[in-house]
């Protein structure tokens, strides 16, 4: 009896060991190393980093730096992304769980952007925004097509959010479809018998039962949008005039382009804390409101 338990324990350890090892080497050790570098002034090239205590953090928090602007941009991006992705994905998921011809084809169409690489999506949309829209303007003459969608700082924000949502939508649709299909039919039938209409059935029965899907989708969209990087790099490279730097892109710029590895590390540590707090709060809030049958 005892040896079986011991064997099971050994198995658990052995099976998780490769994962633990990889995560340690790839995540935890670099994390603690950047913790150290954040306390130094280092350009990433010199042989010895110079210890400078909390100077980097002081420089960031004393304000006026581009970093805070980038964080604020990311917050706005996140709000736009989380709200619109979830509303659109839920609406489309409801539509795609109806019974009509070609429903599977549509599901496939919405999912395709998600399996494409972000960089490719970025370049495709860059092409559409510049060449495609110009062609449409020639055809229709509508001023809408002639706006500088990537060239004006205000519009570039909306373009980036739009492309981000367009790309990720398929994934969240799938999660919501799974959630919708898990809503038990007998409960819905009972509601119908009790005289609930379509709307009432959706808002009073389906929606509350989608709680776990909401938590998952909102949590995923939140973390993904706080980490946004590649789509912006491919679309605008942070431009025009630095208007679309996300926090991660700004950290990359400081650490690698500007040769301030110490400062970049400090920024990433601060950002890590920020993301940790925000995601935990949101996760708590949403899981506490889930209902069980």
């Amino acid at each position: 009896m005892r040896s079986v338990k011991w064997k099971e324990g050994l198995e658990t350890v052995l099976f998780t060991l490769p994962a633990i090892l990889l995560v340690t080497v790839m995540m935890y050790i670099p994390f603690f190393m950047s913790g150290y570098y954040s306390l130094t002034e280092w350009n990433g090239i010199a042989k010895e980093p110079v210890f400078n205590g909390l100077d980097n953090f002081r420089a960031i928090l004393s304000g006026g730096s581009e970093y805070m602007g980038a964080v604020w941009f990311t917050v706005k991006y996140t709000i736009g992304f989380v709200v619109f992705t979830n509303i659109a994905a839920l609406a489309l998921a409801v539509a795609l769980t109806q019974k009509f011809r070609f429903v599977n084809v549509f599901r496939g169409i919405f999912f395709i952007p998600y399996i494409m690489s972000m960089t490719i999506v970025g370049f495709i949309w860059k092409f559409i925004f510049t060449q495609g829209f110009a062609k449409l303007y020639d055809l229709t003459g509508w001023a809408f097509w002639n706006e500088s969608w990537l060239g004006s700082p205000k519009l570039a924000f909306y373009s980036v959010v739009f492309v981000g949502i367009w790309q990720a939508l398929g994934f969240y649709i799938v999660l919501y479809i799974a959630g919708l299909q898990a809503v038990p039919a007998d409960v819905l039938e009972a509601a119908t018998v009790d005289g609930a209409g379509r709307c009432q059935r959706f808002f009073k029965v389906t929606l509350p039962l989608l709680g776990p899907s909401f938590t998952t989708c909102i949590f995923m969209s939140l973390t993904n949008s706080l980490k946004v990087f590649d789509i912006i790099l491919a679309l605008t490279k942070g431009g025009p005039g630095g208007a679309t730097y996300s926090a991660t892109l700004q950290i990359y710029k400081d650490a690698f382009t500007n040769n301030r590895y110490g400062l970049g590390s400090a920024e990433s540590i601060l950002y890590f804390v920020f993301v940790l707090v925000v995601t935990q709060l949101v996760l708590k809030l949403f899981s506490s409101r889930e209902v069980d049958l």
Partner: protein
Amino acid sequence: MFISSPEYADAIGELIDAYKEVAPNVTINYETTQNDYPTMLKAKLNSGEVPDIFASTSGKEIDVYKEWSYDMTNEPLAQTIDPSVAEMMKSPEDGSGLYGIAIKGNFFGMLYNKEIFEESGVTKAPETMAELEDACAKISAAGYKPFSTGFSEWWVFKHVFQHYLDAAAANAGTDAASLVASFEKGEAKVSDYPELYDNFFRLIDLAVQYGDDKPLETGLENEEAAFANGEAAMILGQGAWVEADLLAINPDLQIGFSGYPVSDDAAQCQVISGSDQAIHVYKDSAVLQPTLDFVNWWYTSDYGKSWFVDVAGVVPPITTDAESEFTIINQGKELAAEKGSAALACCYSTDSWNQTMGELFQAYIAGTADKDATCAAIEEQWQAIDGAN
């Protein structure tokens, strides 16, 4: 050997093959990358896999990599390297040394379409601000777009700005390196230099007024296409390297090459020559001597010397009489001989600053910052980014 500039991969492959015949026992592992070279180089330096030969930009970055680089002042190649290239390989900190070599020299200036100029009645390349305004009006009256600008690329700005910086320094009785240094210390004010405060901003304004519909969406490829297809008369921020691209689009294009109109003095309208890239030799390399033998052979042997023109097709970074088949290079050489050439001032700054500067001017073009706010930001950020190191 780990360097950037993948466009010369084939040519360098040939160079290495030729060296095999000279030194059959030496094996050279050549590696190059298109993207993100500096980041990959940093990873290699920090993991202890230091390449025997590596690259950076010239000028200011020489100091950044100095503790890794071998000083080649006393090597044979120091005799053949072109003086304007060697100038950029000195350590700016102590004003001496030869910490790198280059694959190519380069020419920077304004490109114009000779046919459009002729058709619009502009007889010569504009050399003063007044001539430029006049040319713009005439070209636009003839139904052409005077400018295509590539303003969505940050480096376009540094290539243009350096011409104005050189003129500003010359008219203030100093040199560009000292002027850059006083900006880095936060002492210089943009508004004290009319070449920058008036003329450079005037050029940007003209380029926006007479240029692309969506300037901040226009990148290098749009700029090249508009110029090669005969839609735009002048392009900004480019140089010898775009000629092959342009001729690939339109083999009959008549390219004119000139400096920028930087002031009211036509003599100051100069092209810029020099090398913006530096190839270093790792000073603690286990195979230092063979590595030095190779770069010396590259710069001093007959094959090596003819390689630059015959195989790579670049502006030779060495003193040589070899003729080039590229018109920009030939015109650049003529102009440099006739009027002199200005300093490659963008390399006195790091690309970190140059990129930030590009973004500041983009914000100016987008209208999010006015001229004085842009100047204030330039003064503040120049000091913050380049002043510290």
